């Protein structure tokens, strides 16, 4: 969560009156709010933290940081499956059995918002 990751703006659109963008983080694509950098344009880079663009970054700095984060596995920490990571760290069983869950929504755990763990690992190796 502490990590802020550089990303490149792919598209910009209004959503419920809020300026949003799709942003590419070295192969992982996420929805990002641009309300704090309202003049950010397609093709530009920014530092993004928990889905918000917070400060512009030049392309060279952004590329170098993304390469380093990839090498160090930090994109995996940021965008991988947090339940799987928590289970792995704690030696717990994962996934939980569906019978233990309260409804169909609880099974998702937000994972559909991010790529599968293997996908990120694959990106990290490229």
């Amino acid at each position, binding site marked *: 969560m502490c990590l802020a990751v550089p990303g490149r703006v792919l598209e910009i659109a209004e959503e419920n009156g809020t300026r949003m963008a799709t942003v590419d983080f070295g192969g992982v694509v*996420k929805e990002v*709010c641009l309300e704090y950098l309202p003049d950010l344009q397609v093709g530009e880079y920014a530092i993004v933290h928990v889905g*918000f663009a*917070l400060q512009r970054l030049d392309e060279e700095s952004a590329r170098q940081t993304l390469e380093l984060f990839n090498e160090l596995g930090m994109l995996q920490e940021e965008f991988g499956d947090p339940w799987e990571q928590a289970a792995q760290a704690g030696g717990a069983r994962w996934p939980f059995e569906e019978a233990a869950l*309260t409804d169909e929504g609880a099974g998702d755990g*937000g994972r559909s*918002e991010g790529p599968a763990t293997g996908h990120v690992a694959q990106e990290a190796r490229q």
Partner: protein
Amino acid sequence: MKYIEEFQDPDLARRLLDDIHATVTRPWALMEVCGGQTHTIIRHGIDQLLPEQVELIHGPGCPVCVTPLEVIDKALEIASRPDVIFCSFGDMLRVPGTGRDLFQVRSEGGDVRVVYSPLDALKVARQNPGREVVFFGIGFETTAPPNAMTVYQAKRLGIPNFSLLVSHVRVPPAIEAIMRSPSCRVQGFLAAGHVCSVMGTGEYPELAARHRVPIVVTGFEPLDILEGVRRAVRQLERGEHTVDNAYARAVRPEGNPAALAMLEDVFEVTDRAWRGIGVIPDSGWRLSARYREFDAEHRFAVTGITTREPAECRSGEVLQGLLKPHECEAFGTTCTPRTPLGATMVSSEGACAAYYLYRRLELTPARTAPPAPAGPHASTAPLEASPVA
């Protein structure tokens, strides 16, 4: 300079290190404020590459670590309610409360969901109008603006079933508290770069002047840390104590004005308890009166919380830079990332977890555990197999 080839630009790293070695003439203690910086320092063995006279002390800048036990317990109680969908960042899943964590609440049937952004929690609230959706709003000045925007949007869009469990903390009062401590050894600070991306550098000159301490705004990559140390040591050797921005590619002196305006609107400064440290005056934010209806603590009136910190956990001393993680009796024995006693071991940004993951186990002679080989990558006796692949 054994590990220097691992740096992104080994030649530049070597030049920075040579400059630091050539500059330093006597002992200096610097505190890196941010847990992300601690992680980088230990991961790359930067502290071992520096001259012996330069000591890096790890600061309290891990939001997961400093979230008070009482707030964690409130989160666990709210998340256990059948009418609640509890949304959180993934880092909080295994932070121990009194007896359990969010991961266990989920395994017991609680509807706990992990989101990447607080705006995702707002989407969950719109999709589930019949249930209460609570987002766990922790973090420093970098995370507070996204959470503030989410509450603002909830009010603007009229989403009544969304609320925020707030535990935001601010860096400058923590620096103030550290400098006021009678046992303080810190002579210079590496300030957290992304906090300054939002807040700018305006809060620091007065702090630097009053405590006669250099404050160097520093990034998170290995070369950023070396450059931050180089500039801090130069100031100390010259008897200077100013604010210096070594992370200019991401930090402007004025910060992010739009984010600052939103913070001003949605939050108000309040005293805040830090886990293991205690209450620091004016060190946090809470929702301002205009947004109080979105405060989960008011909405759910959680009462009767009795917290119980493990007596052997010394994470409070670690967070204040008074103790190195491996100097704690429990480190690597009863306290590991798999069985953490405190948040500094469970959070990946925590100093204890960083020491554990990168095999910093140089125990003092007084320890009863078998002596461990020195070095950042040495394999060792008292710990389990490394969780790092």
